[in-house]
């Protein structure tokens, strides 16, 4: 009997704000009367009582402010309810007179509409308070429901068929209404967590809403549809539960959460941001690894021709002796070189295995897809970060931000907290000094000279490191030409070692240099980052250029080898039978076949070696620079002449910027190299995994919190931007080699083609219908592509322009707001004066009781904090009806009023009755103007909980 149960929930819902004994008594009475008629009501009633009790409890928390504000409204409401109920009873009494009931109903409806409207006005005026608005919403909803129910009750009683109410058709309108209500309730449930209420209140509201939804969801459908509807509802419920469980599962799957949290509490969010970044990188590399492993390496290993079947898949005879030596394997040559790990191993068969797996195509697409995916994910993350940051005018809230947002609540370590205190104090002082006088320069010439000198030194370092790398790479080529066997370990690993060492020591050098410059720490950090970035970039590109040289050399070599091959083949045949056309091909062991240099494998090897040696240096640096240093400082402090812990060596700090840059460049190498060495993502995953553990341990064990505790989020997108830049830079050489260098003739999946990308056209030709190839040909002709690019550029330009204009509009709005606020203030002052004069001689036509109340509120509000102009503003608005209702004054009023009335004291601080009370029931405006035009006019709905930040607040 859904309809009869309805009162229970609707009343309960209502009860959440109508916390009034009298009222409930009346209801109970009525209920009781209903109970004689329907036994089933007994159950709902008890539930209602329950809900009411809870609701009352919840309501009491806000009792202080709500009570006063609402008293008038409630009274009205109660009256109305009484009336309504009377009407209802009347209706049920006069069972034989449906027309009367209907009339009644109509009457009541119109009345209710009226009152609702009035309430709405009153409500809006009264509260800029959000919470109350919510309450009110619920309240209104409740009312609506009640009205609904009463109507139905009446109808039922009018027709005199209480018992068969289930078959009674529900009109479309009511159904729609009910549906709407259920939807609203659902929305309420979904957004409940956004409300700044106490848990108890939330709980009670939730329970009521859930009860309501449960009951009426089933009632919505009818006949056949009903079952389906119930089924649908059930499924959505199940789905929701599943989703929640899935969410839980997902968060449970996030690795290293606890580790990172521990670090967060010790070192603040900035250090933790590095680890979060590391974890993010790990995720990306996992996906890259999945792509290369699943689509390239595994198919080749399973379905491709086995090792030893082809020359490219066999270790050459000359190397066989040392192919299994550890030193060789560590160098990624020997057996490692002739395996799925590197480009050269793959065969150029179009399809392999019984699945007809298109190996070359897959190889090419994975290479492209890796880069495409990386671009997509980086840009998406950047966009999301940018959204979160919200942009906005940067410097306008400098001080406020320092004050309100500078504490990092994650800090749980007293030492870090002390550092944070110190840094906040310094930042305050700095800001004040900067504000007071725009930076006094003591000796501007000296500073300038030092800065120029510092930059000069930094440039020298950069150039020197670049030259060193170039020199070393050249030398290594010489070694390679003469044969590496004659040289020792150092000569073989010279390039990587030099690069790693440079990466290790140059940042320290830059640090020393930057102390010359005497910059503000934040600016200094930027310079430092920029220099390290330039260093890494320079090194990487020198390396690539040297590599290009080597590729060219190999290409030359290849030509010679090709020529030799023909001679070799000829000699092979000449030695045996001259008429070779019919004879079976001569069996030559694939290890003996001469082969080209295969530059692709060489490039892959170089990158793999670089990655490995980079990893090793990082770990060794951590072990020596952090761990050993910490051990030394800790234990030698007992027998040393000065305090080691606070003196010179001290413990190391975690170098966020250096570590992040290292990570980014490492990733750049992965992107560059993974086309030629499919194993690279796997190695990187391994590296990230171990470094997560090692660095977590090292940080917790041997580092001290930073003296300057930065906060993370500001730099997040900065790191991302660097990553994007590096991604772009590392794509360039990879794409260049793919597009413009012919692949080796005897190794790799693209051997025999003049360019690697020809695999696409080949596939189009063989695997797709001919018309597709034609369409593709048309689509890729420059006549179409150029306009397309032009279009994209234009749209970018357009979007850019729009965003700029939005920003300008924001500023404009802000200015307007300020001027309005000022005007408002002025007006209020005037009003205050006037109303003071008038208070002695009021001429309102309001009922005496409410006037008195309003006056009292007014007074009390004014007393309680006369400091607040704003409260005066609202209170006085009511005191001065003409002004308040004058439409000219509405507009300037709302921002200020809404700004002020917005705060919900929430039961605490009950000493303050917020001014809106007086507005809810304004004493001033006589009859027609009703509650006047409240300051919080509907046009300005205040700040909703989920509303976007920024200027929209002030719509």
């Amino acid at each position, binding site marked *: 009997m859904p309809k009869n149960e309805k009162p229970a929930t609707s009343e309960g819902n209502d009860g959440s704000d109508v916390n009034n004994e009298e009222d409930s008594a009346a209801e109970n009475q009525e209920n009781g009367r209903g109970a004689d008629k329907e036994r089933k009501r007994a159950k709902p009633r008890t539930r209602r009582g329950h809900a009411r009790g809870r609701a009352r409890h919840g309501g009491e928390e806000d009792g202080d402010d709500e009570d006063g504000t609402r008293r008038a409204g409630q009274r009205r409401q109660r009256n109305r309810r009484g009336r309504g109920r009377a009407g209802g009873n009347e209706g049920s009494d006069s069972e034989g007179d449906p027309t009367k009931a209907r009339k009644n109903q109509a009457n009541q409806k119109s009345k209710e509409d009226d009152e609702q409207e009035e309430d709405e006005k009153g409500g809006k005026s009264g509260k800029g308070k959000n919470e109350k608005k919510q309450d009110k919403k619920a309240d209104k909803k409740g009312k609506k429901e009640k009205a609904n129910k009463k109507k139905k009750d009446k109808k039922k009683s009018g027709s005199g068929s209480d018992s068969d109410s289930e078959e009674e058709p529900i009109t479309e309108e009511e159904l729609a209404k009910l549906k709407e209500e259920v939807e609203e309730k659902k929305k309420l449930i979904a957004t409940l967590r956004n409300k700044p209420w106490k848990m108890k209140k939330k709980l009670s509201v939730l329970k009521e809403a859930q009860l309501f939804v449960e009951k009426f969801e089933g009632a919505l459908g009818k006949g056949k549809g009903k079952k389906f509807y119930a089924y649908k509802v059930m499924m959505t419920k199940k789905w929701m539960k599943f989703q929640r469980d899935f969410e839980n599962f997902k968060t449970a799957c996030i690795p290293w959460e606890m580790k990172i949290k521990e670090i967060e509490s010790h070192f603040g969010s900035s250090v933790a941001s590095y680890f979060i970044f590391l974890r993010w990188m790990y995720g990306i590399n996992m996906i890259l690894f999945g792509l290369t492993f699943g689509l390239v390496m595994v198919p080749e290993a399973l379905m491709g021709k086995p090792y030893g079947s082809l020359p490219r898949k066999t270790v050459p005879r000359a190397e066989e002796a040392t192919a299994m030596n550890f030193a060789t394997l560590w160098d990624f040559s020997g057996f490692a070189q002739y395996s799925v790990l590197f480009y050269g191993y793959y065969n150029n068969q179009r399809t392999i295995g019984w699945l007809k797996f298109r190996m070359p195509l897959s190889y090419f697409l994975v290479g492209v897809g890796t880069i495409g995916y990386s671009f997509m994910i980086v840009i998406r993350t950047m966009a999301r970060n940018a959204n979160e940051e919200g942009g906005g005018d940067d410097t306008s809230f400098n*001080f406020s931000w320092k004050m309100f947002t500078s*504490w990092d609540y994650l800090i*749980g370590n007293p030492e870090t907290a002390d550092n944070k*205190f110190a840094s906040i104090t310094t930042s305050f002082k700095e*800001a004040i000094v900067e504000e007071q006088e725009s930076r006094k320069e003591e000796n501007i010439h000296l500073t300038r000279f030092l800065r120029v000198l510092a930059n000069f030194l930094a440039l020298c370092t950069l150039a020197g490191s670049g030259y060193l790398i170039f020199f070393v790479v050249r030398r290594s080529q010489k070694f390679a030409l003469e044969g590496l066997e004659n040289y020792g370990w150092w000569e073989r690993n010279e390039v990587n070692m030099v690069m790693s060492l440079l990466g290790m020591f140059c940042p320290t050098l830059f640090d020393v240099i930057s102390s010359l410059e005497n910059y503000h720490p934040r600016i200094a950090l930027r310079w430092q980052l920029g220099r390290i970035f330039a260093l890494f970039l320079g090194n990487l590109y020198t390396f690539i250029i040297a590599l290009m040289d080597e590729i060219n050399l190999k290409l030359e070599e290849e030509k010679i080898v090709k020529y030799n091959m023909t001679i070799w083949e000829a000699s092979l045949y000449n030695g045996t039978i001259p008429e070779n056309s019919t004879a079976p091909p001569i069996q030559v062991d694939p290890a003996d076949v001469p082969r080209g240099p295969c530059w692709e494998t060489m490039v892959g090897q170089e990158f793999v070696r670089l990655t490995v040696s980079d990893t090793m240096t990082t770990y060794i640096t951590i072990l020596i620079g952090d761990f050993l240093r910490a051990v030394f400082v800790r234990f030698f402090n007992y027998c040393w002449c000065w305090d080691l812990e606070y003196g010179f060596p001290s413990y190391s700090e975690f170098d966020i910027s250096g570590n992040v840059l290292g990570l980014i460049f490492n990733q750049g190498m992965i992107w560059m190299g993974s086309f030629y060495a499919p194993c690279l993502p796997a190695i990187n995953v391994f590296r990230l995994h171990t470094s997560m553990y090692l660095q977590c341990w090292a940080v917790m064990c041997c580092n001290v919190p930073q003296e300057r505790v930065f906060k993370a989020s500001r730099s997040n997108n900065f790191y991302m931007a660097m990553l994007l830049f590096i991604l772009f830079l590392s794509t360039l050489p990879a794409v260049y080699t793919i597009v413009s260098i012919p692949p080796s003739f005897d190794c790799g999946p693209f051997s025999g083609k003049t360019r690697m990308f020809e695999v696409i056209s080949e596939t189009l030709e063989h695997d797709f219908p001919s018309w597709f190839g034609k369409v593709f040909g048309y689509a890729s002709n420059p006549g179409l592509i150029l306009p397309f690019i032009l279009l994209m550029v234009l749209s970018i330009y357009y979007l850019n322009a729009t965003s700029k204009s939005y920003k300008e509009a924001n500023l404009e709005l802000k200015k307007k707001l300020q001027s309005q606020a000022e005007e408002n203030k002025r007006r209020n002052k005037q009003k205050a004066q006037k109303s003071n004069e008038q208070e002695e001689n009021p001429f309102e036509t309001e009922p005496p009781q409410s006037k008195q109340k309003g006056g009292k509120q007014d007074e009390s509000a004014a007393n309680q*904090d006369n400091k607040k102009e704003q409260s005066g503003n609202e209170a006085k608005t009511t005191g001065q009806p003409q002004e308040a209702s004058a439409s000219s004054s509405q507009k300037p009023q709302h921002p200020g009023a809404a700004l002020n009335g917005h*705060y919900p004291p929430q039961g*605490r601080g009950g000493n303050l009755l917020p001014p809106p009370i007086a507005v809810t029931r304004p004493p001033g405006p006589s009859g027609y103007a009703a509650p006047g035009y409240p300051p919080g006019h509907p046009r300005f709905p205040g700040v909703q909980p989920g509303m976007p*930040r920024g200027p929209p607040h002030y719509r």
Partner: protein
Amino acid sequence: MGGSSSLLPQEALGEYQELTFLNKQEILLAAPAPGLPRALPHGGAVVFASSSAYKRFSELLPREQRENACSVRVPKSQILTLPELRANPFQHRICHVFSTSEDGDDSMSFEDFLDMLSVFSDAATSDIKSRYAFRIFDFDDDGVLDGKDLEKLVNCLTGQGEEARLSSIEMEQLIRNVLEESDIDKDGTINLSEFQHVISRSPDFVSSFKIVL
């Protein structure tokens, strides 16, 4: 709730998930999961229902109260021993704002505790965070941040050390600057929506207004 059942009842757990920004693990981690000492007399068979969930909140309670941790209030002094709050200069304000205690001793029930964690959780919206931040900063609970509130706030932020304190001139200057920036309607105080306006522009408020267990 609580009573004899050893874990948080399933439905309550569901409701808490619905009402807070916490997920199941977080609630359980924060939740009392008694059963440790109580199960022992029955023989060593059972015990340690889930030691990972046997955490935070019930740890704050004396042993004999852990069984019905959901209905017991933890005194403020105990709450402040949480490492997450220990170093926080606003610890007293946080306790005060989230406590529903009637006698004003700022003790916290489990639900208050959940409320707090929810607001400080990662998933909470900037709106609700800023709302509570405002109440935390509003030292005299009068609904606006005036000069005195700001002064107290600055003193909290600069720490305990005497030499770290700002001089009165600096303080005055600072507060004047803050008001100049954020007090849009120029009434000498910062109200909630002005506060939220400022906060919403701040890039790192949401990421730093966070406490994790």
